[in-house]
């Protein structure tokens, strides 16, 4: 349990740098705006209490806001997915599944991860883009933007997961 703390701090730093230096500079098109930073909240250990998830969601969001100049927007979205995460994991995980310490792509499987990341990123980006635009005009443009950004974000997140996840089963550690 103890080595989870340095691991998560390291992951936070890595995701933050990757987000602000690479993914926020990609400039594919105005429809595709990928965010991989929320992976920090999504990969916290399963046992994390809900209020800790919410606080971490908000403060990590504020950290990203500080660098991207969008004060409060990522914090609001991060808080929301921190709050929703336990519900969602309950819903999408089959009964009687044995858990690792934290979500791991080799343990839970890629299908589970695509559903998990897809739903959370859709919620995250919906809140973020609508707050950013501060308007509900241009609804189909926004919908397309949310959809495409979600897909691209999930693809990048999966690449990140396969690059940095440990294959070793750490059950009952």
């Amino acid at each position, binding site marked *: 349990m103890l080595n989870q703390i340095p691991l998560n701090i390291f992951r936070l730093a890595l995701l933050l740098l990757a987000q602000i230096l690479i993914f926020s500079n990609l*400039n594919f098109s105005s429809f595709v705006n990928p965010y991989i930073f929320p992976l920090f909240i999504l990969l916290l250990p399963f046992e994390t209490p809900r209020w800790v998830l919410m606080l971490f969601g908000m403060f990590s969001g504020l950290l990203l806001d500080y*660098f991207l100049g969008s004060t409060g927007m990522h914090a609001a979205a991060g808080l929301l997915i921190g709050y929703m995460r336990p519900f969602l994991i309950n819903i999408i995980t089959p009964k009687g599944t044995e858990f690792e310490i934290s979500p791991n792509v080799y343990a839970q499987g890629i299908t589970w991860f695509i559903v998990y990341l897809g739903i959370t990123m859709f919620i995250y980006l919906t809140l973020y883009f609508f707050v950013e635009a501060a308007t509900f005009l241009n609804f189909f443009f926004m919908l397309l933007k949310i959809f495409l950004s979600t897909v691209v974000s999930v693809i990048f997140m999966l690449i990140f997961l396969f690059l940095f996840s440990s294959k070793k089963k750490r059950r009952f550690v």
Partner: protein
Amino acid sequence: MYNLFQFFLRYYLFLLFVSLEIFCFYLIFQNKRYNEVAYMNVANSVSGKVYSTYTGVSDYLYLRRFSDSLVDENAKLRAQLLDSKYISKIDSGILRDSTLKNVQQYSFISARVIHNSVNEAANLIYLDRGRLQGVGKQMGVINANGIVGQVVAVTDNYSAVMSVLSKEFKVSAKFKKNEFFGNLHWDGVNSTTASMEDIPKHVPVKVGDTLVTSGFSQLFPRNIMVGRVKTVKMEPDKNFLEITVDLSTNFGSLSYVYVVNNLKKQEILLLDSLAH
């Protein structure tokens, strides 16, 4: 009292969630209203240092492109030198140095872009020049190809620029061929186009017409390139033309820019206050 206590105990997570979310939205709306505060945040030293370190590394990879664009620009400037023009008028009033000072209206501060975005609803650009180098709020920013934006926040060594690709940005532009002017603003979808407002229907506008700055706002000098007309539409129920403009600045690849310092700004503002 006991019931109230029970209620809090039962729903404390939801209540925590709602109160934190209210706090976040308070931050967001606070910043929407007082934009400068938000931009100050970004132009401050910690994130400014991170970005300028990163730019320092990535600049080496693009040195060739930068030097090419600088050489191009030098060639354009050389073409504008008095020496390269034929002056037909026999000029009697030659300007001496002491008077030249009074005649000059604009000076330019070169700056390097350390962070840039084109995908947001309000795009910000950060420059590695700030108050100590003479950059001030409300100064215009241009590059060799056209207009870039307007300075919205300055710290000692960095500044934040609201780019043309922001919904709040408006600039007065005119047609080069007939001097009709209107407001240019970004429509929020595409990073290469903007739309032109307030051009009456009787103005002859063709696809490909050049738009330049009018110099009416104190941001930019006159005749800085803005872009070319991409499409013109005439709606029967509207009084003005619907014009989309291909912006001449490529916002996806900004490297070096110039901050415009309007030396006569104070005087014009004074005139403005006297006239009203």
